[in-house]
């Protein structure tokens, strides 16, 4: 696990002290709201629909048991006993009092956490594959690179006032679990000449009101050029990105308006000035930071576990859990376990303080105290012995944390929507809950197979609806909630933006509409091996439109 060095620790503590002073001056009236707002946003504090909301950074989704316990404590002492894990691998508390936030941040700093880079027009908290350092298909652990980018980007003086926010994602496996092609910069690790690590570089992706897939500007960027190249991209964006219109200020619009060739040339020209100078990334530095992420000492074990196989044979629920929520680990005899935060009928991504403590405890017992947060709003225990999965499953099941639905139709992503968010136009959580209840039958979920439903309560697309196999976008139509359906989106290495299928559906019809889409799929697929996305890509929108709008 990465540990703060002395610089990080003193920097975070100084920021807490600085913010404590700013809050005191706001409460005394010395600072007006207009003066204070940009300061609070630089510390992750929003004023949301009901109260102040604090967004806590979980850099590249990595947490320890100690940190998770602290989050549970904060949920209980400073909030209403729960938190919301987001599609940016962060955690949001919805009900914090402004006057107590400095104390809260001081408690976070005790466990090397903070709320920096979670808001404002800066380089945001870097995200990464949630199976990093554990997945069998990984060619390189993306976390050291994400951490290097964090160190480079944190309070980078040149990039603190960008035209808009800027998001970077890194993945180290051929199968992209970090959605890199819908980020401002996506870094996809590849092996280059001589087997050396480098990155395919994508620029100008994003969701929101203008969903665009990033352009690949480099097939292979050598590791040592990572920072110089990212700095070149940021420089081009900072200088040329639009500042006249908030909605056109992201780099994706710049790339779209200027064209890939012109932007790539501008980046390369800037890079030529920077290459091989102070931003060069020496292999020794990469190795030093990688050492912080050294895997825990894992045992040499047989590839299969007799204990687990026996337990599975006697326990169908365990067998299902393993089939859906356990992914291949790079070490024989271990598994990567997804702890679903999508129990049937519950708000996606929410965890109570008690559940956080359970996860902290089981991570300590079974996963070397390591936890990951996924952008799909689940938690992950990256290093679990197959032998110990039955005991882990039994413990998780006691606390409604063993729903065997990872990757299935009820593993729904949903933004907080109009129940919590000041920007939302429609509710997301109740729709997710009703869909979850409609498809609660696990046998039916297995029959449907891999299917990603993603719900956003407004066009800002925090619920990633554009890249859902089935996406739902909530809009406000004359005071009524209406849900537009998109089909065929995907955020993996074959990224696609979903197509709007037709007029939207009112809230009391939208679950039926999704069910109709799924029934059409089940009727036309070649077999269970053809998943929803493949079937949609084969047949297109027409059969679905015909079923949804038969009466139109």
């Amino acid at each position, binding site marked *: 696990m990465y540990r703060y060095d002395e610089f990080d620790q003193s920097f975070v503590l100084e920021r807490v002290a600085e913010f404590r002073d700013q809050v005191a001056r*706001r*409460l*005394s*009236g010395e600072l007006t*709201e207009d003066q204070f707002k940009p300061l609070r946003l630089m510390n992750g504090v929003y*004023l949301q*629909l*009901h*109260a*102040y909301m604090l967004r806590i950074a979980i850099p590249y989704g990595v947490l320890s048991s100690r940190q998770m316990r602290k989050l549970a404590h904060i949920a209980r002492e400073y909030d*209403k*006993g*729960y938190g919301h894990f987001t599609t940016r691998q962060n955690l949001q508390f919805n*009900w*914090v*009092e*402004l*006057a107590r936030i400095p104390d809260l941040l001081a408690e976070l700093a005790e466990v090397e956490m903070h709320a920096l880079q979670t808001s404002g027009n800066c380089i945001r908290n870097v995200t990464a594959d949630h199976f990093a350092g554990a997945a069998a298909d990984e060619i390189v652990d993306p976390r050291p690179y994400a951490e290097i980018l964090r160190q480079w980007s944190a309070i980078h003086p040149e990039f603190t006032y960008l035209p808009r926010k800027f998001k970077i994602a890194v993945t180290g496996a051929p199968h992209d679990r970090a959605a890199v092609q819908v980020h401002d910069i996506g870094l996809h690790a590849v092996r280059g000449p001589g087997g050396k690590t480098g990155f395919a570089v994508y620029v100008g992706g994003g969701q929101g009101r203008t969903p665009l897939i990033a352009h690949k500007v480099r097939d292979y960027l050598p590791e040592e050029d990572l920072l110089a190249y990212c700095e070149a991209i940021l420089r081009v964006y900072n200088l040329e990105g639009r500042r006249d219109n908030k909605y056109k200020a992201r780099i994706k619009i710049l790339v779209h308006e200027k064209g890939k060739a012109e932007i790539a040339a501008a980046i390369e020209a800037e890079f030529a000035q920077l290459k091989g100078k102070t931003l060069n990334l020496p292999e020794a530095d990469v190795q030093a930071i990688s050492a912080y992420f050294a895997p825990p000492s894992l045992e040499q074990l047989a590839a299969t576990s007799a204990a687990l196989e026996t337990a599975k044979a006697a326990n169908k629920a365990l067998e299902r859990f393993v089939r859906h929520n356990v992914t291949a680990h790079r070490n024989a005899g271990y598994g990567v376990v997804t702890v679903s935060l999508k129990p049937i009928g*519950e*708000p996606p991504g*929410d*965890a*109570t*303080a*008690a559940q956080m403590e359970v996860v902290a405890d089981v991570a300590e017992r079974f996963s070397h105290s390591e936890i990951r947060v996924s952008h799909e709003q689940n938690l992950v225990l990256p290093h679990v012995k197959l032998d110990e999965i039955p005991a882990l499953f039994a413990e998780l099941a006691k606390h409604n944390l063993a729903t065997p639905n990872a990757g299935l139709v009820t593993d729904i992503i949903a933004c907080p929507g*109009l*129940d*919590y968010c000041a920007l*939302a136009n429609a*509710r997301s*959580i*109740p729709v997710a*809950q009703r869909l979850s209840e409609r498809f609660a039958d696990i046998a039916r979920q297995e029959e449907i197979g891999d299917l990603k439903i993603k719900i956003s309560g407004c066009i800002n697309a925090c619920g990633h609806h554009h890249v859902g196999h089935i996406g739902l976008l909530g809009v406000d139509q004359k*005071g009524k*909630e209406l849900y537009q359906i998109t089909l065929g989106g995907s955020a993996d290495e074959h990224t696609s933006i979903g197509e709007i299928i037709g007029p939207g559906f009112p809230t009391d019809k939208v679950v039926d509409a999704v069910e109709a889409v799924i029934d059409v799929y089940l009727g036309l697929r070649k077999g269970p091996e053809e998943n929803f996305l493949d079937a949609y890509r084969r047949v297109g929108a027409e059969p679905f439109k015909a079923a949804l709008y038969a009466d139109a």
Partner: protein
Amino acid sequence: MSKAAKPFRPVAITANDLRSGIVVFRTETGDWVKDATRAEIALDPAKAETLLAAAKLDHDRNIVVEPVAVAFDPESRLPVLLRERIRAQGPTVAIPGSV
């Protein structure tokens, strides 16, 4: 041709408490309370303007932030729009761990 002015709808004044951030409504006595049904309702534009001006003074005095007038139903004594009803009454989904 200019658009006809929208007919006036009754409004009440809402804001967030500066210190805690919670949603509050302005009462006849000028207090800020959590209970929306205690909000003073303006039944004409002049009254709405007066109430909002008073609320803005409370903003300037660092008592509340972002005061606004929202359409209010005098019968139910609740906001008209779903968004504002959710602000007044809380999320429409259960708070995790509360049941």
